């Protein structure tokens, strides 16, 4: 077996990840403030179109940063967009129908805390993380362009944002448009979560390609990402829920956004630390 190594860290990749998190929070703040100040009046179709446009913004922000900063060690932009599209396609063709129509998750996942956690990990987590993994593994992974361990993070993030975009568009369409203020917060949370957990899968993918890892390495990566995914959704529900009465559950989405941003920072930080540690270990050999 030929063994090769990722030799450098590609700082801009991490800068992009952190900038994405900050920009999404700023973006949400701006849309929320504008919505409050202007109080726009929409027709059904313009509300739907605005919602779909907003659903595309998180991925657009990341891609813009990526294009701007990926100058020294450029990844083929077509491949990045292609993996993004594949992530979106897998979400629309497999992920959403499987979770919503076959497993009918919304009918039972909120029955108890155990159901929320187990359903979130076994059904939602594994489906989403496997499809994002598949979008990278069965496209760019064997290409010569996937030539560094960090590429795993880049392409998996692209797949994750593709997946998030479809989830957000589906949310907008199924609700016939969304309230701009709370809708944009939800979109940012979904994008941050999907990008973060993809980062974990991407790290494992990168190492799986360039190092002789054990057979359990990649399954461990998917399982960890699925567990984080399931736990995140449960904890986000807890922090967002402000009060419960017999007739309804009051939800404040802001703590959910703060929680998503913290999780995204922490996950990206941990993946960055792992990549650095791996590089320094390789340099020491």
């Amino acid at each position, binding site marked *: 077996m030929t063994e090769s190594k990722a030799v450098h860290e590609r700082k801009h990749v991490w800068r992009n990840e952190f900038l994405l998190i900050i920009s999404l929070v700023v973006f949400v703040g701006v849309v929320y403030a504008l919505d409050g100040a202007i109080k726009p009046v929409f027709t059904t179709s313009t509300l739907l179109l605005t919602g779909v446009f907003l659903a595309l913004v998180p991925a657009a922000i990341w891609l813009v940063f990526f294009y701007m900063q990926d100058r020294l060690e450029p990844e083929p932009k077509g491949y990045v967009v292609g993996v993004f599209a594949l992530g979106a396609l897998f979400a629309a063709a497999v992920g959403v129908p499987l979770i919503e129509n076959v497993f009918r998750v919304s009918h039972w996942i909120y029955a108890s805390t155990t159901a929320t956690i187990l359903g979130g990990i076994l059904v939602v987590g594994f489906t989403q993380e*496997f499809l994002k993994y598949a979008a990278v593994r069965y496209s760019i992974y*064997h290409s010569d362009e996937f030539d560094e361990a960090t590429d795993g993070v880049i392409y998996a993030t692209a797949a994750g944002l593709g997946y998030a975009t479809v989830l957000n568009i589906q949310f907008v369409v199924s609700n016939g448009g969304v309230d701009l203020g709370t809708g944009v917060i939800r979109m940012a949370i979904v994008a941050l979560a999907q990008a973060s957990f993809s980062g974990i899968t991407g790290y494992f993918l990168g190492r799986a390609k360039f190092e002789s890892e054990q057979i359990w390495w990649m399954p461990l990566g998917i399982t960890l990402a699925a567990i984080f995914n399931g736990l995140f959704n449960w904890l986000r529900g807890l922090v967002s829920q402000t009060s419960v009465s017999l007739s309804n559950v009051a939800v404040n989405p802001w703590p959910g956004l703060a929680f998503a941003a913290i999780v995204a920072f922490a996950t990206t930080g941990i993946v960055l630390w792992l990549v650095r540690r791996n590089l320094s270990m390789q340099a020491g050999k």
Partner: protein
Amino acid sequence: MENKKISLGDRYAEITVALITIIALIGGWFYKSSVENSSVPFNVEGITAQAPKGWLQSEPSGDELLRTTDRSSSGYNTTYILRKIPIAADTSASQVASLLTLGHGQDLLAFRLLEQREVTVYGKTAYEISYVYVESNPNLTHKNIPSVVRGIDYIYMNSDNAVVVSFWADDRNFDIDLGRFHLFLQSIKY
């Protein structure tokens, strides 16, 4: 940088990832079934049943002993109703069915009878009425589009009363929710 060739180890890892995902989904499916089919015992006026757990259950009122609703179902919330109607000794099931049909015609919007027949359900003879109606919020300012609801009533004759078990579900969920209703139907003892 040189890329690693696809090795046998890679292939095994790839298969293991797929296997782990399939095992997780199978586990999820079993867990989903256990949550959806979990029930709570119900016992009123000599009628016992296993009502779905986690559904919104109303207190008995009039001839209605149980009304339980799945608040998480989309569109019209799937509802089971259990009634005990006093009848004269010589009343037939088809006469009870006619009375129920008349009542539905008065109470339910755009009510249409689809089919009525005598059936055997889990070893018990029953009279089945299938129908459809439109559920619309009476509040004129409500913006929800009315739902098309499909219903089935099973009438069991029991000496001086008729036990009527009704299943109402949104037209889109009817076939999917019917299996769970049959578990409820099977559990009824009177």
